[in-house]
């Protein structure tokens, strides 16, 4: 079997699909829903407990960036539930419904 083949977008919809690669649209492009932001619920942006960069910063930042949506990237400031607030999410069983319970935490 041969290898790489090209698809050249022709109509406007196809050109928008081209944009999708840049801006990160969901699979179902007919609803044109951007992924990232509030449309999916990733687990937290945990702080890095290790003494290396990024110190106290995002853990698994690489994975976070896969869900960023082009210019739409805006990480929520979520308490880390690995190092400091392990029970943070307990008040929120189903995040789609219970996210209002999350509230905020004060650093101890």
């Amino acid at each position, binding site marked *: 079997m041969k290898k790489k083949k090209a*698809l050249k977008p022709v109509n406007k919809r196809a050109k928008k699909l081209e944009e999708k690669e840049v801006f990160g649209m969901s699979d179902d492009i007919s*609803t044109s829903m951007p992924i990232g932001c509030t449309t999916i619920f990733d687990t937290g942006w945990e702080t890095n407990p290790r003494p290396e960069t990024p110190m106290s910063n995002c853990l698994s930042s690489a994975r976070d960036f896969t869900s960023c949506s082009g210019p739409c990237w805006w990480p929520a400031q979520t308490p880390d539930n690995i190092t400091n607030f392990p029970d943070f999410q307990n008040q929120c069983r189903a995040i789609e419904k219970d996210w209002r319970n999350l509230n905020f935490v004060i650093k101890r």
Partner: protein
Amino acid sequence: MQKFRIAENRMFHADGHDFLFLTGSSAIFETDPDIKDILEQGFRAGELSREEFFSRMSGSDEENREFFEEIVNRGVLVKANSEAFARTTGTEQGAIPLKTLVLHVTEACNLGCRYCYHSQNGHAPGKTGRTMSSEVAQQAIDFLFEHSGSLEEVILVFFGGEPLMNFNLIVFAVKYARDKALEKGKKVSFAITTNGTLLTDKAIRFLHENKIGITVSIDGFEEAHDRFRRFPDGTPSYQVILPRIKNLLRLEREKPVVARVTVAGDSGDVPEILDHLLDLGFSEAGFAPVTTPDTSYQLNADGMNKLLDQFGNLSDKFLEIARQGDFFGFTNLIDLLVVLHEGEVKNYPCGAGLGLFAADPEGRLYICQRLTGESSCYMGDIFKGFDQGKIGTFREQAEIGQRNLCRTCWVRTICAGGCYHEAMVREGGLTKSNLHYCDWIKTWVDMGLAVYARLTLECPEYLEKLSMLRGHAPLFSQVI
């Protein structure tokens, strides 16, 4: 492990180039010639994981990965367990603003066209019927603006019967709607569909001065027209409308004046009819098979095939003329090409019951002008408001995802099941799919794709012009 399958598609060719239409997104790509083989070889078994796909490819890992990402990103491959249908969002009750209101300014008509669907609704053509009062028109216009949400522009359509039989009401409604638009800071545009018999100098002047979009129902040259379009006493109408239409078409116009031809019986000589209408000075002419349960007027299979052949010939002619950069007003093809160019994904066949409703002379609301008076399509009235429950049920049932028979059809995002009125008359249910013309639609869209591909290769800017002609904004602010 995540498996992938090939998304529903239609491959087509033009002048040695290969193209791919993806049903789910209505995206069209030009492809390398052997992508079809690759996909078919790779996915002969149906579903493959990424790793299985790589194992069947001969390229380097890097090349395979790039190729795989390309076809996944563009939707050629989809997750095997993904829903073929995404639920339409935003069609829940009341979420869609009202854009177009069709006013049945009168049920009366001075013609008695033999195939007229209004005769099936109990309004015998040629007889008098209810007439809309200025109070109802005023309330209807208020209703339109009130329900237009954040839309900047609304459209008011005058329909009948023969709307010009209630000319004074139209004059009133246009003035009232203009004042209302000023008050609300919106735009209003107007359209009328007329049989042409009452296009007096006064009426023409009024329509022209008010930039009202005009559609004339006319079936072609004299012999074709007079076959079915006659006065109730049997007198033919062509010679009556001809001088009036000439007066109308003589004027410089800001809005196109279009002809709408009902194709009935055998399909007649469509190319000759189109030439005749364009020679008269119409901007465009569109053709539609008659909607009737009466088999003496319906197009039979031979008639539909002949119509398709004639559409094919006209498409060839359109292409020839487009290559010269000129315009050929064959509405059916222009509409199809614009749908293809925009990549519209239709979850509903048309705007009826979404952004468009029709009001009868007493202000009762129906999903469209063709189904006015049909109790199952009654959706409230302009005084008490929409019946949101019924509208919600209709939208739920009408959506393409609910049409099991359309599930595997590659053309479903263009056809979406077809005209509700046609479905009611021919299939026995408003939201049934029009199975009697499936093959016809598929062949016609194939013809459209072929023309589209050639235009893409030879004069892509022409497609952009057609799109703009239909009011679409240019992509990425390109200036043509």
